């Protein structure tokens, strides 16, 4: 599992791990049922505190994205996310706000934003089928 973290951009390290794992799952580079590296191994690979990695795994488990099997490691969940519809809307709304703010600053029209979103969706589908 290839992920990078950096301390200089102000985002907590466990956040960076969570978002990168989520991206990998969404892009299909991590399949459901695949095992994530053990906490210790990932900590050594990234040279970060094992507690940070443990916290990231815990948050991922709480969000239902991964499941921890007792004694044998952490695996990507088979089932879909079990977060309620309301929470999902909340999470996505926050991201969309950031995207729209950025577009407004860059003076990009809403229709262009939607066109770009469709293009990126196609790219992601291609990566999944590869």
């Amino acid at each position, binding site marked *: 599992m290839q992920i990078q973290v950096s301390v*200089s951009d*102000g*985002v*907590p390290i466990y956040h960076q791990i969570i978002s990168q794992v989520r991206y990998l799952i969404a892009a299909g580079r991590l399949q459901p049922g695949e095992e994530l590296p053990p906490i210790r191994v990932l*900590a*050594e690979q990234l*040279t*970060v505190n*094992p507690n940070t990695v443990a916290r990231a795994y815990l948050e991922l488990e709480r969000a239902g994205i991964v499941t921890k099997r007792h004694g044998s490691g952490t695996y990507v969940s088979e089932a879909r996310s079990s977060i309620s519809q309301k929470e999902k809307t909340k999470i996505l709304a926050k991201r969309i706000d950031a995207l729209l703010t950025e577009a407004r600053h860059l003076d990009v029209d809403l229709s262009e934003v939607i066109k770009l979103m469709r293009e990126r969706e196609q790219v992601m589908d291609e990566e999944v089928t590869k």
Partner: protein
Amino acid sequence: MKFPSPSSAEAVVSITNLARRFGSKTVLSDVSLHVPRGGVFGLVGENGAGKTTLIKHILGLLRAETGRVRVFGLNPVSDQVSVLGRIGYLSEQPDLPGWMRVDELMRYSRAFYPKWDAAYAEKLREQFGLNPTQRLSTLSKGQLAKAGLLVAQAHRPELLLLDEPSSGLDPLVRRDILEAVIRTVADEGRTVFFSSHLLEEIERVSDNIAMLHQGRIVLCGSLDEIKLQHRQFTLHFETSQTRAPIIAGALSISGSGKEWSVMCNGWRDHLPEIAAGLGARIVDDRAQTLNEIFVAHAGANISTQRS
């Protein structure tokens, strides 16, 4: 500014009200900190802040003139053998005897630590690329640091004490040192005490940190808490300000014209009212790196001393 620190009951190192003078110079004044078991404790401070003096107190190389130092619950001066046998120490300049060879160093050190793992030591030696028949006086600075790290780690100490181990070393050796730190703390119950002014490293691996400035502790607590409380806000004023806005308790204020950056510590809830009172609104709110927090605290202390 103190954050809730771990209780002294389960602390590996417990320092209370420690003060130290060398002649007329006060190097440490009223230092208290507790290092909890099983984590990485980072100590930061500028050169001359007293980090090495503090670490020497933990090792028992300096007696506590005022205050108390307890390591594993014992006094490191009177119970030196039991305390030192459970500590692995790597300093900035590992004072290794130049006439020894690498294999002799390993054999000699092994005799002192009953928990020395010979297979592990051999694995480390191969990993570090140290030739057993080489004399220590012919090793480069990085290789000497690795040799010192080998001796400090091979007996799987309960407390790994590192005093600015990476200063002057290349990134490869620094990575080896960080990996040693992580490996130590991944084993249950082992603790690392790490002092450095490479703040990026401390930020990556520490659970708790303490910051020393001119012999005093200015920050102490969990790294996540500290980063959460220190934020930098950008205030946008309606009218251009000729002088910096006075905000009590702010760590640093900089900027010009209509936009001013304020770094504060802990009262992010009150800031909107204060900003409204000054006729400004908050337009940006971002986290700080440890480097920026450190510089702000060091600078703030200097300015409070001057005023």
